[in-house]
């Protein structure tokens, strides 16, 4: 009997000893164990980083665009919308806006068509497919600035390999060989080609990821029901892969519409602004000329366009899901 009591007492002591440190670190344990407390804490560093270095700069850009700030005269004098108004009335800017749309639409369209075509080819297993895929992915993987420099060398006014080939084939003579980056329309064609070239592997990969995600039995069922190749393609596969393609397209649009690297390195907007795009113009005015206010206003013109595109595309995803 006594032994039993002693055992209970002993057990109580053990519990007491175990409880003491537990009580001491109660708040720490509480934090570690409660998902609704731990969740926000784990999320905080990433969120703070982004708030400080994305949200704050964005607001700052808006503020610069509404002020008369230049690096030579850093005043925050509020000037309302006058920067935007003077930018819109500028001929160079109007041409830049048109160029940016031409550049984006043309290169993405070419990239998408090539992408769909390439995905159809790569869908079929054949010997060496892995190597082919690795080679095709190169334009998208390699840093865009470096690939652009290689293209610049291919479009060189004197030593262009493209001209050399056309001369060798008898299509041109050396005298009338084009100066690719020196003529307005050709220069635009060049930057479109380079961006389409950079985008099409990504587009292939996106289409492939989508098509392989379509269940085979759905396709089989459609075939049994009499759907031919085109019908399977456009009424089954395309609607089913639409969400994934739309995500890919958002990436393409956003990164093309705001591009700076290709234009900066290949033409720097020239000749006579014929290839000027919003990103490069913002850089020229905001950084090179130091007119931060007008540069910020130019950059901010991208924002409503991007926002509208993203909203339209997100909506189209939702519609396809229903």
């Amino acid at each position, binding site marked *: 009997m006594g032994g039993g009591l002693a055992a209970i007492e002993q057990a109580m002591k053990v519990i007491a000893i175990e409880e003491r440190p537990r009580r001491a670190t109660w708040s720490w344990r509480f934090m570690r164990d409660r998902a609704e407390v731990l969740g926000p804490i784990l999320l905080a560093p990433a969120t703070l980083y982004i708030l400080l270095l994305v949200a704050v700069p964005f607001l700052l850009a808006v503020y610069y665009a509404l002020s008369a700030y230049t690096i030579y005269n850093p005043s925050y004098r509020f000037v309302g919308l006058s920067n935007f108004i003077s930018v819109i009335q500028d001929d160079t800017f109007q041409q830049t806006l048109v160029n940016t749309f031409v550049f984006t639409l043309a290169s993405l369209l070419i990239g998408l068509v090539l992408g769909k075509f390439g995905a159809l080819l790569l869908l079929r297993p054949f010997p060496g497919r892995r190597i082919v895929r690795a080679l095709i992915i190169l334009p998208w993987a390699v840093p865009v600035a470096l690939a652009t420099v290689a293209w610049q060398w291919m479009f060189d006014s004197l030593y262009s390999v493209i001209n050399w080939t056309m001369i060798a084939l008898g299509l041109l003579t050396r005298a009338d060989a084009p100066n690719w980056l020196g003529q307005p329309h050709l220069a635009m064609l060049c930057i479109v080609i380079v961006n389409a070239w950079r985008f099409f592997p990504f587009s292939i990969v996106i289409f492939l990821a989508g098509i392989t995600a379509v269940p085979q039995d759905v396709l089989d069922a459609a075939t049994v029901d009499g759907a031919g190749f085109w019908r399977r393609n456009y009424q089954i596969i395309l609607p089913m892969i639409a969400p994934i393609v739309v995500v890919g397209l958002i990436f393409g649009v956003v990164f093309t519409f705001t591009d700076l690297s290709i234009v900066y390195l290949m033409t720097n907007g020239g000749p006579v602004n014929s290839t000027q795009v919003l990103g490069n113009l913002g850089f020229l005015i905001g950084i090179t000329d130091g007119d931060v206010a007008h540069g*910020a206003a130019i950059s901010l013109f991208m924002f409503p366009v991007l926002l509208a595109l993203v909203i339209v595309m997100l909506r189209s995803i939702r519609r396809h899901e229903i």
Partner: protein
Amino acid sequence: MPKFLTAAAREGSFYSAVLLLVVAAAFPFYWMLITAFKTNADLYNVTNIPFWFNDPPTLEHFSYLFHETLFGRWLLNSLIIGVCVVAITLVTALPAGYSLARMGGRSGEVIGIGIFLTYLVPTTLLFLPLSRIITMIGLQDSMWALVLVYPTFTIPFCTWLLMGFFKTVPREVEEAAIVDGCSLLGAFFKMVLPLSVPGILTVVIFTFTLTMQEFVYALTFISSAAQKPITLGVATDLVRGDVFFWGELMAGALIASIPVAIAYSLFLDRFIAGITGGAVK
């Protein structure tokens, strides 16, 4: 044998279409490669056939690159920037991705989409205010500015990628650990992280390649040659006035491209799963 012939024609057109695509994609890299090893006399002679070596190949461009330019320094800068950005990204994106995958709830989902959308905020929208901020805190013309700024696009991307990855780890793993006396946090460190090594590796590789590919911020923040990362150094510093050193340019571009190209072809599927993770559930 008309049947045999049509089959052969179909195969032939298939393979020539594949070949055409490969040439279209890879020719600029072939051009990079062959230019990098050609002598200047060979390069700048328009009567030579440009597609192959007319003089024996040379390493002069590579030796010029390492001895006469800051190329070695740029490589080192890129490496340092990459390692630091990877560290910052892992420390912030690992917990964030786990939090969004497991303890998000409704508001977590909104924050998750918000974080992902910041990946779509273009660099050309933020480079002006960021350059002013960089100047204010005294990091102008220093590669540490890039270490500070690059996580703004690697954190969103990697958080999203890791969230998808953590969702594939079965909940039972953590529940078992918690039953055995682990705290929630302990279960994350002891059970989930070791199981996520492939995902973490993917994040490391892609963070690194994203920092190698970046050009706009580097161009904006850095002007002195010794602070440049490799992409910026090769693209802007090997041009003296109007003279392009094509051999050196292509040699530098080649060296900088190879690791990124290899990383992408090995980890491509994970990358795609990462960016489309939100669209295909």
